[in-house]
């Protein structure tokens, strides 16, 4: 059985017609690779909409993944109605981010996309009220150690993840889009104020298309965890394709990147998505985002690191290069998130905790 590499997966997703000639074993390799990249839903969506003929076994897997996606979308809608009920009395805008925003607004990116957590963004000054209302509605903080609580509350851009006690769903409550300690300090008020209302959900908002795009890029470049890296790039690709249907989309992206003080990551993110999956970015838009100082082109080594690191899990797990690239990006992301002294303390604390956790675990397993 031949493996399918990440590059072939990207190519099959861009032009699903290629798969029409695939044998059964090629189909299973393609689906395995897509599954490892968390892109099986998108693959299913694309080969099904292009009406590509396939063996019954492949259809069974792909249709089951689409069915799971529909079920997840339904669950998210249910949770969002719950959030509407829980938070409406506060009379504040509750902005959905990422997967929940795509699903609830019926964005094309949501088609075939599987997701885990629900992310919301609320004004920082009402964070305390939001947390209490959510606790009353059955959401409990999942991080219990005092250090974790402090880490999130003092330094991060979100509360510690909250878990619904009945359904086990996870909610991330953000008050801005980057850690408070990071180099860039975007003011999330711009995103919240411009966000659009949804029919039947008066408290709930969805960010403007340019903000969805920018947030997706910033999330990919600052998160440091790249297990879903390729999926995130396909999100970005879908967001900019759908966004570009509005004629003033690119000027708005440029404006928003400047207003949020995020031109550098947006510039690099657009360059990356062009490099990895060939998304079309208008040259004037790239030029307008180019950092004024120094570098005319995006860093080649950083591009190379990301190209290695976003390979699907199946490949990355067996590649030293990908592992090293992921580590480098993890360190870089933390470097961007925190000033050096804080980073040193945080990493020291985390490794101490890991040592302590491992000792009894190793005993218990032996």
């Amino acid at each position, binding site marked *: *059985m031949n493996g399918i590499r990440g590059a072939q997966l990207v190519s099959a997703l861009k032009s699903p017609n290629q798969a029409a000639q695939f*044998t*059964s*074993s090629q*189909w*299973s*390799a393609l689906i*395995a690779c897509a*599954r*490892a990249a968390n892109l099986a839903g998108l693959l299913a969506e694309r080969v099904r909409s292009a009406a590509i003929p396939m*063996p019954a*076994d*492949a259809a*069974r*897997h792909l*249709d*089951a*993944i689409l*069915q*799971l996606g*529909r*079920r997840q979308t*339904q669950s998210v809608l249910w949770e969002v109605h719950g959030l509407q009920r829980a938070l409406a009395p506060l009379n504040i805008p509750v902005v959905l981010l990422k997967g929940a925003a795509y699903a609830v607004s019926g964005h094309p990116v949501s088609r075939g996309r599987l997701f885990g957590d629900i992310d919301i963004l609320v004004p920082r000054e009402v964070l305390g009220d939001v947390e209490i209302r959510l606790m009353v509605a059955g959401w409990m903080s999942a991080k219990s150690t005092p250090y974790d609580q402090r880490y999130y509350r003092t330094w991060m851009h979100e509360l510690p993840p909250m878990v619904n006690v009945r359904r086990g769903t996870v909610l991330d409550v953000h008050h801005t889009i980057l850690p408070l300690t990071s180099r860039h300090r975007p003011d999330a008020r711009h995103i919240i104020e411009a966000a659009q209302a949804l029919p039947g959900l008066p408290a709930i908002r969805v960010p403007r298309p340019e903000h969805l795009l920018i947030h997706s890029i910033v999330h990919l470049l600052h998160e440091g965890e790249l297990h879903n890296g390729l999926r995130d790039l396909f999100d970005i690709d879908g967001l900019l394709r759908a966004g570009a249907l509005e004629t003033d989309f690119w000027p708005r992206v440029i404006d928003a990147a400047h207003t949020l003080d995020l031109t550098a990551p947006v510039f690099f993110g657009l360059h990356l998505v062009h490099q990895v999956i060939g998304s079309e970015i208008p040259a004037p838009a790239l030029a307008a985002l180019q950092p004024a100082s120094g570098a005319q082109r995006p860093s080649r080594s950083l591009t190379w690191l990301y190209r290695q690191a976003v390979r699907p*899990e*199946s490949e990355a*797990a*067996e590649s030293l290069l990908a592992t090293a690239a992921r580590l480098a990006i993890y360190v870089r992301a933390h470097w961007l998130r925190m000033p050096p002294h804080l980073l040193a303390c945080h990493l020291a604390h985390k490794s101490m905790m890991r040592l302590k956790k491992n000792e009894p675990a190793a005993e218990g*397993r*032996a």
Partner: protein
Amino acid sequence: MRIRSPFSAVSAHLETFYPDALASGRRAEPFTDFDIRIIRGAGLRRWLRPQAHFMLDHIDPFLPLPADQAAPLFEWGLNWCLASRPLGYLVMHGAVVASDGDALVMPGFPGAGKSTLCAALTFVEGWRLLSDELTILDPESDKLLPNPRPISLKNESIDIVARFPGVSLGPRYEDTRKGTISHAAPPAASRIAAAQHARCRWVVFPRFIASSPPFCDEISRAEAFARIAEQSFNRDRMGETGFRALCAMLDGAHCFDIGYDSTDAALTMVRDITGQ
């Protein structure tokens, strides 16, 4: 399926219990539903206290087990694969046997004795084994899919089942997390008929209760629904499709609660219920 392992116990297990699958798998270049590896642990532990890890693709979903349990680890792991990977089927915990196209489903509460009863129906009464562990329902046809794999027997039930006619047991694995376990090979007739789906006609919730008078109570479909739903691995992920499939499965079924203190008593009750 693709299975790779350095453990000879795993290949012996496959040769004993899956002869047809091995033969057909070597011929074609087929679609791979599950790419499984049972591998050795890394590092010093490999020599001091050898362990077996179950891997599905690059995922390692379980804690490793001692190396001498590599074969049972494969069976548990494959159950997990069938229950967790989206395949479009509603998967529940329960034994299924059939006579012609009519299936008897026995949802499993741990320790209720369903594996022993399932083995008795298969070997003593001649029912066709669909599965002793997984009830797999196809929402497209509302039919149950066979998965005739070795019956997993625990502790005292091993000796009981060993006395049934035509039973061939594999090795005994001591000190597993479920106690001593052993596998009974499914009858050849059940393996050969693995492509024949069956419709659920009876649902029986078996309960072995030592020194208690036997009882058999017909229960409502609604009650059976609630109790089976608890035993489903993926009902939530299957959403409305799963809900409708389970309703459709029960539409044509009679449901019973039975209690017994001997396998013979249970078989008599099943005969009365099914007329078989």
